[in-house]
């Protein structure tokens, strides 16, 4: 499925700079994520990959530059973006006190599609057992099951989705991601493991890193 140049841009970032603990992680970042495309954010540890993802989903507001969701900027567009956002972070977002089925219905899925999704991450038979009795791998698959729901949200933001997955799991995930892209969805993700995903673009944060000399971070004073 080729991303035609005219396909609508879902998420656009202009001249983005992020700061954490008084240190500038990167600056001058520009990219746009059209619908039906996927971008993997590369960069050394601590280069700010997670900070970038958290900024794009509106969880951190220490940034300069512009983030546009379908043309209109944050924070006005934040609510609209969150209506079509699926975010999976380092922590899966699975409640130990609930069963996998209840977890998925908590994310707004109806029973039938939740069962379908759980089956596709081969959790058949575990739908009704409490998550704290399942293994870490199974819990991870419950977290990823949200991507297998029929009406999955349009924008997927995934932080290291492949961790703790076996070979079969990775393959199933890659297949589901490309199916999502075919349906016009877009994906933004970070991953240490290589990903076999047709049409995957890359951004390397180290191209936008600020060199760590003694810069006057305090900024020139405004009044002479």
């Amino acid at each position, binding site marked *: *499925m*080729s*991303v*035609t140049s*005219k*396909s609508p841009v879902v998420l656009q970032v202009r001249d983005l700079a992020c700061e954490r603990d008084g240190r500038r992680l990167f600056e001058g970042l520009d990219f746009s994520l059209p*619908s*039906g495309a996927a971008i993997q954010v590369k960069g050394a540890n601590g280069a700010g990959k997670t900070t970038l993802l*958290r900024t794009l*989903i*509106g*969880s*951190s507001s220490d940034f300069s530059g512009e983030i546009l969701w379908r043309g209109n900027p944050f924070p006005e567009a934040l*609510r609209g973006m*969150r*209506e*079509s*956002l*699926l*975010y999976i*972070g*380092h*922590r*899966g*977002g*699975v*409640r*130990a*006190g*609930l069963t996998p089925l*209840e977890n998925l219905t*908590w*994310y*707004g899925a109806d029973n039938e599609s939740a069962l379908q999704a759980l089956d596709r991450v081969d959790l058949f038979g575990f739908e009704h057992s*409490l998550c704290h009795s399942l293994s870490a791998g199974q819990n991870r698959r419950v*977290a990823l099951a949200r991507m297998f729901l029929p*009406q*999955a*949200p*349009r924008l997927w933001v995934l932080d290291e989705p492949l961790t703790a997955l076996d070979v079969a799991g990775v393959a199933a995930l890659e297949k589901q991601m490309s199916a*999502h892209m*075919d*349906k*016009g*969805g877009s994906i933004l993700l970070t991953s240490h493991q290589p990903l076999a995903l047709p049409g995957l673009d890359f951004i390397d944060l180290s191209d936008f890193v600020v060199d760590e000399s003694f810069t006057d971070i305090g900024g020139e004073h405004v009044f002479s």
Partner: protein
Amino acid sequence: MSSVDVQPPVSEARTSPGFVALFRIEMLLALRKRADIANPLLFFVTVLALLPLGVGPEPDLLAKMAPGMIWVMALLATMLSQESLFRGDFEDGTLEQLTLLPQPLYFAVLAKSLVHWVATGLPLALLSPLLALMLNLPVEGYLCLFISLFLGTASLSLIGAIGAALTVALRRPGLLLALIVMPLYVPVLIFGTGAVQAAIDGYAYSAQLAILAALLAAAAALAPLAAAGAIRISLDN
């Protein structure tokens, strides 16, 4: 390959849980963690049973101390169970998902605080006549004690949520949460004990209960907002 728009567009607005759904799920979780409900109650009863052992069984002395002691113990029981309000969700990542819901975080925090009240404050209020009996509280005070605890512990849960949210990402939040929240509990404690004392002395106590209700209304309106802000700040840690 035909252009992208031919396939059915991916669903736009995801159906995320509203206030009622959140309340139901939180209630379900609270009922499943039986211990979290029983602990504050057991704490409440055992400590109050210790009081006569410490102070001596003279009925009139106990009667004088009963309103204050019952209220202080209710306050401490609520505060002890406050810490677990967001901690579990923080550790498994659902707290972060709550902040990403399209509708304001206010409703999720309100739902959690109300569930915390139903799980701790309400049972304390229901149990209070038994404790009043043990501490020889005059009979006129029973009804007022129940109403004041009923209203007061709700405010305590709502205000305590702010402290829980501010300390959710810390390793050992217990003491700090108490330190932060204690001054904010003072007005509720003063009017709660004041109402029961007035009822015992035979004065009208509707004014104190009205103020407690006003404090509850203010807490219900403002505390979840502050707690929501605190959650977003703590998650950035």
